[in-house]
């Protein structure tokens, strides 16, 4: 097979930085190969793909050395539009990529730029739309689409150029499980038709259809091996903090040659290996009873009655549009717009009952951390951020409590720093600490795992674990079933505006097909062993 991507002595240093962000002595990819590129955030993955799609050196400033060749042609001698006819790039966040108002306009964006005649353009658009299965969305407005739908629109727009090489930079990080399944289904079909470079943290989902794994660390390629040989690299991957599916870890531990799930389960059964059972806490006393309804003008109705206990983590799962976020927003009093929806949700704690939609009163009981947690960081220092609630509510008796919270979230060394200038993980810790510092003992997190790599998700899991042990009630929305299985004590499944199932992760995943959920490999293996 021909080598379609070749890198030789490639070095790149970002403008204003002293450190080299990428150094690749030699690397190549053959035509039709499917390569998984992984590594922690900041390990050089994005810099690497930007060297391939020509963004480096043509658009991003810095010192670039060496040669990158695409189908034998040096990217220095090509312009980005020319490269983009061969190399298509799909990025992480669909909201940031889509700039047009309707799906049709967005998919037509690339062919319009290349001045392709209208008839030919229509053929290309039809083919791309059909390839990603979004025919039914053609005339829809892009701002009304779910993340998964929007990501497929972005993908269709890239496919109109019919690129022979397709780069997907964390394409499923910001979308729900249904959208994730659709993207992976598309990729599975594309194998061998195009050369695929997939940057992805969900290693478990990509492994079945890739040929090769490339692992980055500190701007260097640390592992470049065939998929089958990944068992040899498990220790290194673990050391780097990269998410490794449990079947691979166990295959390595049991000395197996393959990490096929059935094989691993068989071996576990034969060797009588005891898989760690995850403990599900039942909680202490009841901390919150939330009940009521939200009636949208558009016709959608949400109705529920749920009880939560302190010292537990509850995950709310379900498809987009099932009412998860509406339920959260209704609970915190954000749905009081008579033109959009009428909200009538009662919050009951052991001490009080709140019926009116007063945001500030509800905020005393429940803390809410939206997906875009940056939006709450309005103060100039972390210290001011933590003291904000008490300052505006006029309760100064929380000073020692706030110091304790700062310690709990290891924020002491950042107290005088601007919260918006911190790293993503640190910002989330500040936002969480600031929410708790306001006094609520019930914390609601809206999709905290979205867009997070394994390292950040692990930290998040540990943080909510600390809060749970401190007696807080944690309620979170997530599409990440591995995270939910690992950290939640209880799962509530939402569908059509109702809570249709409520139980431990084991009870819910047992019937996952009924609820349209994809159980994580950790559950599948434990269940499989019981059934062997």
């Amino acid at each position: 097979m021909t080598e379609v991507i070749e890198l030789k002595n490639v070095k790149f240093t970002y403008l204003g930085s002293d450190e080299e962000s990428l150094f690749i002595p030699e690397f190549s990819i053959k035509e039709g190969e499917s390569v998984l590129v992984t590594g922690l955030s900041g390990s050089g993955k994005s810099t690497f793909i930007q060297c391939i799609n020509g963004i480096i050196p043509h658009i991003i400033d810095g010192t670039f050395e060496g040669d990158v060749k695409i189908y034998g042609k040096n990217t220095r001698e090509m312009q980005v539009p020319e490269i983009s006819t061969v190399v298509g790039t799909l990025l992480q966040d669909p909201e940031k990529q889509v700039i047009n108002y309707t799906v049709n306009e967005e998919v037509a964006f690339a062919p319009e730029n290349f001045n392709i005649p209208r008839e030919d353009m229509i053929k290309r658009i039809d083919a791309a739309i059909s390839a990603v299965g979004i025919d039914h969305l053609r005339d829809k407005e892009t701002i009304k689409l779910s993340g998964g739908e929007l990501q497929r629109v972005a993908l269709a727009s890239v496919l109109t150029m019919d690129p022979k090489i397709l780069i997907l930079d964390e394409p499923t990080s910001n979308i729900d499980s249904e959208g994730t399944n659709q993207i992976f289904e598309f990729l599975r079909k594309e194998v061998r038709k195009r050369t695929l470079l997939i940057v992805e943290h969900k290693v478990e989902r990509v492994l079945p259809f890739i040929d090769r794994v490339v692992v980055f660390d500190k701007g260097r390629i640390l592992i470049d091996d065939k998929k089958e040989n990944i068992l040899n690299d498990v220790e290194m991957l673990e050391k780097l903090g990269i998410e490794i599916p449990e079947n691979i870890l166990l295959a390595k531990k049991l000395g197996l040659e393959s990490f096929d799930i059935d094989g691993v389960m068989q071996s576990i059964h034969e060797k009588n290996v005891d898989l760690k059972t995850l403990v599900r806490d039942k909680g202490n006393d009841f901390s919150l009873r939330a009940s009521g309804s939200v009636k949208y003008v558009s016709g959608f109705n949400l109705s529920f009655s749920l009880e939560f206990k302190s010292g537990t983590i509850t995950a709310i799962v379900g498809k987009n549009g099932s009412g998860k976020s509406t339920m959260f927003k209704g609970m915190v009093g954000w749905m009081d717009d008579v033109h959009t929806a009428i909200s009538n949700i009662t919050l009951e704690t052991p001490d009080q009952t709140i019926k009116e939609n007063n945001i500030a009163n509800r905020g005393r009981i429940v803390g809410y951390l939206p997906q875009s947690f940056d939006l709450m960081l309005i103060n100039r220092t972390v210290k001011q951020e933590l003291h904000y609630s008490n300052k505006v509510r006029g309760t100064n008796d929380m000073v020692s409590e706030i110091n304790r919270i700062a310690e709990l979230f290891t924020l002491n060394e950042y107290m005088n720093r601007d919260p918006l200038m911190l790293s993503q993980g640190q910002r989330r810790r500040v936002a969480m600490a600031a929410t708790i510092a306001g006094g609520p003992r019930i914390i609601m997190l809206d999709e905290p795992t979205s867009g997070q790599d394994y390292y950040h998700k692990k930290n998040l899991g540990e943080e909510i674990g600390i809060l749970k042990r401190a007696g807080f009630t944690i309620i979170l929305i997530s599409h990440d079933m591995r995270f939910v299985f690992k950290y939640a004590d209880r799962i509530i499944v939402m569908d059509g505006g109702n809570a249709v199932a409520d139980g431990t992760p084991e009870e819910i995943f047992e019937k996952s097909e009924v609820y349209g959920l994809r159980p994580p490999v950790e559950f599948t293996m434990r269940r499989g062993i019981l059934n062997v």
Partner: protein
Amino acid sequence: MYDLFDTIISWLVLIFGVGAPLFIIFRAIGIKGFREITVYSKYNTFLYRTNPVIKIIMTITIMMVVTTSIWWIGAILTAAVLSLYITLENGKRKLYIGSLFIISTLVGSIWGYAPFVTFSTLNTVFPHFVPDVIWTWPSYFAVLGYQHTLTLQALEYSFQISFRSTAIMASALILVMTNTPTQILRTLHKFRVPDSIILSLMVAMRTVSFVLQYLDESIKIQMMRGLGSKHSKFLKPIFYFVAALQGLVPTIIHIMRGGKDTGISVDTRGFKATKKRSYVEENSIDHLDYYVLVVIVMLVIMDVTINIMGFGRVIPYN
């Protein structure tokens, strides 16, 4: 010493000038309402079917007419353009929000201008000017640039000049509400506006919706954390305003963090790859556009006629 009553009334009047538009914008319209009149939503009435080029020409013509004719022509045109909102998607609601928006502009403009109008200006504007003083400000208000007295003529003059902008705003909002950013910008491309400017505008127009959504979220988070909870409900609009100001930086930073990805996405899809662009949808002119053109021509004829009749934007004003 100033009379306490005078001081209190003066400050209340001043606060009304600042507070009333804020109250209308943040409480009556709200960020969601503001979003409704600044973004496109799909529908199918004659305004949606009219070519954006024609709508741009109509807005320019309205601008021309209101700036060259007497104030009440501007007022009539404002009412006429606003009445067209009823034909839009969710028309009654849009008419309501649009009217509130225009009222807030009028109140803001009158109160932002009247206290500063000098007697010499009023002398020029009104023949045989005899000031009808309706309020005398405490002398320390001069620090704010206020004239010593507020006259009926100053209010009248400010009211009249406010209508110079309202019809244009109402018309421009129709353009934004009935065309996608892509349609508008395709039109600009035909007017030979550089592609880089077009792209910036296109991203900006799409971002408006996100800015308002995120800002709304940031305001609600601050309210949840207790902002304004110690104070009276009547001061709520002021705290909404404070929350909006405080929320601006995190909102903009949140949006800017994705700016790099937007740039990469656009560049890797061949933006500016060729000098000419082709379009999947044709921007054709049909019968409906000719009818609107007739209305535009009639507006121009009316403008010329009323100027000949002495109702041009001349001084004196009445």
